[in-house]
């Protein structure tokens, strides 16, 4: 096989790089469209949102969480890895 002409090689080389990267540019827009369509489809098929929680239940949960946190912080040496607790 003969060596190609340098000018032709330059044209094909730089032309191919531009064409490939232009195609990738176009593919990004196609991907965006696919993502948008998938998001729309997923949104339509999502289960209906649950009813908002009862405010009283939410307050009780917050209070319980705060109590547990306070308890843990008041007895820091009684953790699972605490040597004295094991004694």
């Amino acid at each position: 096989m003969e060596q190609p002409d340098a000018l032709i090689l330059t044209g094909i080389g730089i032309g191919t790089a531009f064409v490939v990267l232009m195609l990738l540019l176009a593919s990004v827009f196609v991907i965006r469209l696919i993502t948008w369509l998938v998001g729309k489809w997923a949104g339509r098929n999502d289960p209906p949102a649950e009813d908002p929680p009862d405010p009283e239940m939410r307050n009780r949960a917050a209070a319980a969480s705060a109590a547990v946190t306070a308890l843990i912080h008041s007895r820091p040496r009684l953790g699972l890895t605490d040597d004295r607790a094991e004694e």
Partner: protein
Amino acid sequence: MNELLDFLRSTGFSAIGPGEGLMIALGLVFIYLAVARDMEPYELLPIGLGVIIANLPLTGLLVSPLEGTGFQESGLFGLIFHYGLSFWNILPPIIFLGLGALTDFGPLISNPKTLLLGAAAQVGIFVAFWGALATGVFELSEAASIGIIGGADGPTTIFLTARLAPEILGITAVIAYSYMAAVAFIQPPLMKLLTTKKERAIEMAPPREVSRLEKLLFPTIAMIVIILIVPRSAPLIAMFMIGNLFRESGVVPRLTSAASNEVLNVATIFLMLTIGTQLSAERVFQLDTLLILGLGLVAFAAGTMGGLLFAKIMNLFLKEKINPLIGSAGVSAVPMAARISHHVGQQSNPRTFLLPHAMGPNVAGVIGSAVIAGVFISLVNPT
């Protein structure tokens, strides 16, 4: 007495010459730059060690399986060079697997027009290619291998040169990595020369958040499209995208970790040591080497200028202007070139934050140079 003389003749001292001495000194310079200056240490340290080993005489470490005629006559680095590069050429694609696992396509997907900057910066490859042909010293395959230095991508340079012109592999690889280490000195003067302070101060809006689905689809589609157009780029492009899909899938963290750590590191050790061993005194002290050194610099400079000027041309048509400094990152040299765009931008306007924007053309440059390497392999016959 004869035994003693024979022993003395078998030592390296009897065969070492001034050329070898100079090359060992060069190896020590590489080690110094890596250790004391932190310049591309992962490349320059093993390359420097390889240079020293290659120039210690009578070791037999570089004897290729094609030269070795008897039992265990091939040298360790002769074997790695033969099977890892010149015959099978598998080390650069393995490096690309690791690079893919480390790459985030997010900035490129969020601002896809930066892909064009990655293409424009490849002009450096062809400037050096024509420069090499104009010297009348190099054949077409060697000119292509010298030109690819302008892609500023070490594994791509090694992959192409090992295929087209293995006799200049050590030189092109070392020059590519040396200039990649020196982009901090090569690029900023050109960036300041070709842009106004107002242009350098342009602020760009933060890139949008890219979804996981986009990050999964892009490498898959890119791999298929590129390999269909340039099948000979497949070893690099396929491995790069496979590594990236490991990362973005999120379901194979051990494979991602292995590709970007153990596999990449092991391949780097053998590749860089072997490249260093290709720099023997008789190969380096030639006119060709000086020419390649000069042409490599031209390639880097032309690539930088190509990216910068194309960004300025794009700004003529864009409503939302881009900072032209991100164009210089299109030469690859990931991530140093992107960091330099960012630093030069901040010197003009501390509020401009170019790093995520520059990563787009930076990654596009890797793809662009791998594509051009594939074109060269498809069309040019090896020497």
